């Protein structure tokens, strides 16, 4: 039996949970969100990724109801939510600072939202216990927020925002305050919880690794616009612009002019000894300016020129960044350009084949890079 892939955005029958329709938000002269239209589907884990000041937090605050769009409308299940105050929305938010009430115990923090509804007392107690169990906090119910660790506080914030079973959960940089190891564990925990509860999550982050790990789709934002929305694989393997390619992960960009040399195949004259060959489904006219983006791990490094490589250039090792499992070689080409190539450290470092100042060959296949318009 073939497993159905979760991709409601490809299915025209699916109705989106949230729709941004031509939303613009201005703060005085500053345009935070610029005519943005985007759908988010039920059960999605949608990540808004971008540098600080790109408008991702504004988007989230508009969903929560703390900001109102200057133009355009936001629909939740087909209903315009413009006039609905935050306390009347089926949307909850997990704040970056967690915003736990310091005068209340963990238990009371989680019960806070439930007590504002007309839920009976024993139902509230049952729900709080359920949330404590979900976030593995059962032992800490009686403690105050300042008596627990950062990771526990983060889970209390999550439990509190999930307690009311919102249609949509907003997470504002939820893991920003945690150290790396804890962050990685928590990412998987978040994914598990999202899957068990079936809630739609929208997460704001500036950490591309975090976005890639947790999200079903990633929206890369810049200056109030969404540049690209796609699954993490597509964002990484097929970025639609130099900005996205550069923002997500490490990339080498070769700038030059394209010339067709076969079906969906182009030769790029980038100033090297010979033009690079790259395939592209996107058509380029002869002489058009193009950027060839190649990920460091897709470039092989060798002492001799490989016989069957579509592209090969010679250079000398300028620097080696040793990352433990990987090494990144910075190789300087005769043109002065520095290309990064990554290889797995399958051998012990002492037996490394090349070191600083060694002449090496870099090679990559015709399909390794992505050809982008400038």
């Amino acid at each position, binding site marked *: 039996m073939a497993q159905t892939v979760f991709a409601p955005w490809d299915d025209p029958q699916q109705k989106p949970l949230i729709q941004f329709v031509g939303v613009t938000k201005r703060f005085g002269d500053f345009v935070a969100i610029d005519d943005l239209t985007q759908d988010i589907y039920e059960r999605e884990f949608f990540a808004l990724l971008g540098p600080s000041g790109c408008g991702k937090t504004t988007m989230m605050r508009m969903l*929560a109801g*703390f900001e109102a769009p200057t133009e355009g409308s936001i629909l939740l299940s087909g209903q315009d939510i413009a006039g609905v105050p935050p306390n009347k929305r089926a949307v909850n*938010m997990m704040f970056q*600072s967690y915003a736990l009430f310091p005068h209340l115990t963990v238990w009371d923090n989680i019960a806070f*939202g439930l007590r*504002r509804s007309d839920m009976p007392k024993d139902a509230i107690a049952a729900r709080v216990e359920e949330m404590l169990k979900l976030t593995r906090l059962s032992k800490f119910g009686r403690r105050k927020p*300042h008596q627990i660790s950062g990771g526990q506080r983060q889970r209390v914030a999550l439990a509190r*925002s999930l307690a009311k079973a919102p249609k949509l959960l907003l997470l504002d940089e939820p893991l920003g305050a945690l150290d790396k190891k804890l962050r990685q564990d928590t990412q998987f925990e978040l994914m598990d919880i999202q899957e068990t509860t079936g809630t739609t999550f929208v997460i704001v982050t500036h950490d591309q690794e975090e976005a890639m790990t947790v999200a079903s789709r990633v929206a890369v934002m810049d200056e109030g616009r969404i540049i690209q929305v796609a699954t993490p694989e597509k964002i990484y393997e097929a970025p639609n612009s130099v900005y996205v390619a550069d923002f997500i992960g490490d990339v080498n960009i070769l700038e030059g002019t394209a010339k067709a040399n076969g079906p969906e195949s182009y030769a790029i004259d980038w100033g090297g000894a010979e033009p690079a060959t790259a395939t592209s489904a996107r058509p380029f006219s002869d002489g058009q300016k193009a950027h060839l983006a190649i990920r460091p791990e897709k470039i092989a490094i060798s002492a001799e020129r490989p016989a069957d490589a579509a592209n090969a250039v010679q250079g000398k090792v300028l620097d080696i960044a040793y990352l433990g499992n990987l090494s990144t070689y910075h190789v300087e080409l005769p043109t002065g350009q520095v290309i990064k190539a990554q290889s797995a450290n399958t051998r012990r470092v002492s037996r490394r084949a090349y070191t600083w100042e060694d002449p090496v060959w870099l090679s990559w296949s015709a399909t390794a890079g992505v050809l982008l318009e400038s």
Partner: protein
Amino acid sequence: MRRAVLIAVPYLWLLALFLVPFAIVFKVSLSDTALAIPPYTPTLKDGFSALISGLDFENFVFLTQDDLYWKAYVSSLQIAFVSTIVTLLVGYPMAYGMARAPEEWRPTLMMLVILPFWTSFLIRVYAWVGILSTEGFLNQFLLWTGIIDTPLTILNTNWAVYIGIVYTYLPFMILPIYAALERLDESLIEAAEDLGCSRMQAFWLVTIPLSRNGIVAGCFLVFIPALGEFVIPSLLGGSGTLMIGKVLFEEFFANRDWPVASAVAVILLLILIIPIILFQRNEQRQQEAEQ
């Protein structure tokens, strides 16, 4: 050694400026009035054993016999309590407004609160005489606007005392509440709203509990001095205004009955010590919470 010196400083301070004066006042309160200098007996000149045997509690007994005294205490407590509540009701919104004002405005607003201290307290209270008297600015203004036909009698009533106390002690209420509110994280209010609170509910459930320490500190800073207040009731209050500070002054300077005056002071101190202990305990709890 250095530690001992450091610890000794506050204890010496307490000993020299509180315990020793208190012991002297307490001793005087146990003495009898006399036509002498100082106007009480016995003194150390009579010898130690005569001094000890000459002391008794008859002044304290006297305080319970004349209902002037306990009425003055009750009236003082009542005036101090009502003034504290009114000061809180006036001061809290002001502190809230200051804490929510744009960052660049806050130092100016703070300055405006502190500015009255640059003028003598006595002059400021006298100024209220000019405002509140029958021919004063307030009455002239109200007559001019046509709200009233005959001037109101405010000066020399308890109303004037309330106005004076609230005016004088308002900064002591505003500053601790402002300090508490300024530290309050705005996202806590947003979180409360996000979880289903209206703005009003968020205020009662989050803002008030989190500024509780400021409220408690402010109330004590107003209540304690207001209870023993002498200048305001004697300048603004009338013959009907009964406050223990005024009684104390009368006993001491008009009657020259130092022992009874001292007994009044000792009782006043005991009444104050209870709220002070409560205040201390509150501070301690706050410190523990922050650890």
